[in-house]
């Protein structure tokens, strides 16, 4: 290490490793992991999100989980929470759809309208 720029490069890489502990992430993906969600394949959906976010090195996206949300008939349910924007809830998710949400919504900023089941200000 010879310059401040070197240090900065190391810091940025290390910050990605620690992003779960960083409170100011840009987007939170919250997968509903209640009993019915898990029965409908929420784990696969979550894994798909994790893999896709990792593959694309989205340092400012955190994938986390929550309990039953009350949309049992539309499980697996996923919330996308972005600072300063409406909370978007996707329903009837699967691994393929998850990948599309990552590409269209998280990367390009266009929510995937056909999967949305509710939007909350």
């Amino acid at each position, binding site marked *: 290490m010879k310059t401040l720029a070197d240090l900065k490069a*190391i*810091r940025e890489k290390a910050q990605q*490793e620690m992003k779960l502990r960083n409170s100011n992430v840009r987007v939170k993906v919250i997968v509903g992991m209640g009993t019915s969600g898990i029965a409908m394949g929420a784990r696969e959906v979550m894994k798909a999100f994790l893999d896709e976010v990792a593959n694309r090195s989205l340092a400012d996206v955190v994938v986390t989980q929550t*309990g039953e949300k009350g949309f049992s008939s539309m499980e697996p349910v996923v919330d996308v929470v972005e600072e300063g924007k409406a909370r978007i809830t996707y329903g009837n998710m699967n691994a393929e759809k998850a990948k599309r949400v990552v590409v269209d919504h998280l990367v390009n900023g266009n929510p995937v309208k056909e999967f949305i089941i509710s939007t909350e200000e």
Partner: protein
Amino acid sequence: MPTKRIDLLICCGSGCVSAGALRIKERMIEVLQENNISNEINIIETGCMGPCDFGPVMMVYPEGIFYKKVVPEDVVEIVNEHFIKGRPVKRLMQQEDNKALATKEEIPFYQKQVKVALENCGYLDPEKIEEYIALGGYEALGNALINMKPADAIEVVKRSGLRGRGGAGFPTGMKWEFVSKAKGDIKYVVCNADEGDPGAFMDRSLLEGDPHRVLEGMMLAAYATGASEGYFYIRAEYPLAIKRIKKAIAQAKEYGLMGKNIMGTEFCFDAEVRTGAGAFVCGEETALISSIMGRRGQPTPKPPFPANEGLWSKPTLVNNVETLGNLITIFNKGADWFASMGTDTSKGTKVFALTGDIANTGLVEVPMGITIKELIFEVGGGIVGDHKFKAVQLGGPSGGCLTNDHLDVKIDYETLKEKGAMMGSGGVIVMNDTNCMVNIAKYFLDFSVDESCGKCAPCRIGLKQMFEILDRITKGKGKEGDIEELVTLGNSIKQLSLCGLGQSAPNPVLSTIRYFRDEYEAHINKQECPSKVCLDLMHFNINKDKCIGCSLCARRCPVTCINGSRQDKYEIKQVDCVKCGNCLEVCPVKAVTKEAGMHEDVKKRMEQLAQEMAEM
């Protein structure tokens, strides 16, 4: 890029480890494997999170959920409910007014705290330099090396108002300036981690929880003063702190942050660890320097000060762990930011180790100028159980005690000194009304007698004399004039001793005499220990009206001094009683009580014995 979704931070500070944190970690690894989700969860061992009394504690990110008093049996529930189904386990959270407090921010223990030195402690993995760098580590050093002259760095510390956190409170910037102006072909920086006060664990926690912060602080100090070699003097009782600092040094070298021409500048620096054998006096800087050089750890007269003639007679800067721990934040956030906290003379924050009869035992960092009341009752959660607050010992065996009358005293170096206590390194021992202050003074003095290095007579002989007087007083053999004798001895020892140990060792006695003189008088004049602690000056009694004659006490008495029957009830033969307290414990109807004062029978027996001795 990791595919992890949860960072599980398990506090592995010494308190939590002894409460079983490592067993929980092992169990967690097993359960995660059983559920096949090991690759989704990061388990991180952190340094002390602070609330040692709640141990073992853990934090779960990204939510920031705080769990306390976790036992291995809870692990399955945490994994199934929280990690798999996303439902945090309320049962294991801190409870208040029937509400579960999920995150650290909601818990009162943390609310009055301001973390500077402990900023990252309990938040990062202390064995990974990458995590430290991710949180802005080594930036202060890099900036200083590239953009600041050594004199500017000294100016920053001077403006911040930082004072030595080891106890004496000497302004750090001035100390740096002395070393920087001293002439020598080589200069040294020493980190004083010889924390020896009973009940103090601030420095250990900082070294264990965030070693790179201390190392970076040392390098900043070295750059500012022109030093090129550093020593960490850590007591051998702190093996984990030693391991962590050694690891931090190795990692910093690997990244090119230590060694020759750091950051491409002229600055070269290397450091190593020296372990101390555990002598309290080696926390005194001249004794510490002797010990590093392999000599006997004894203080030497000042001047010459270490700033001019220290290690191997070269200019040497000695700074405490916490002092170094404050530096990077001062450099990153600015001297004015630091100076905006605290009182006129004492700036910034101070780390305290809260122990004793207090609800939230643990490691806290609060702004200077906080009142003792806030520290004990708000941060510390007050006294455990139904007891009342009696006194607080600040500064360990070198400090003094403060009482109920001092709850509104603001904590800073000058005020505490004026009231007869001292900041010390930050040990805070809280005592409830079951403590006998004479006995407490005796305990601390006993420590100082043991730890006196023996070099100068006032400390070596004087402290022993004081101890013997106190010992007599607690055994009911106190005399008229003992208190005055203690005060005279104490004041002389303070004036005549060479180093800080002797100069401060009489403080616990002097301050307890100042605030609890009535207790001393009761011991001497009435042969009575009002708190019923000193065994010779209290006795047990069986209330015959309450006694049901069950004989449990008589059967448990190790010296068979309790006799009686179901009809006559039971009675203690006071002369034979050894005050073990078994009878008090077993009595099912609480007929046995502790009474203050020596029993009449015992007094008579003692007079009789004295007479027999005289006749012989």
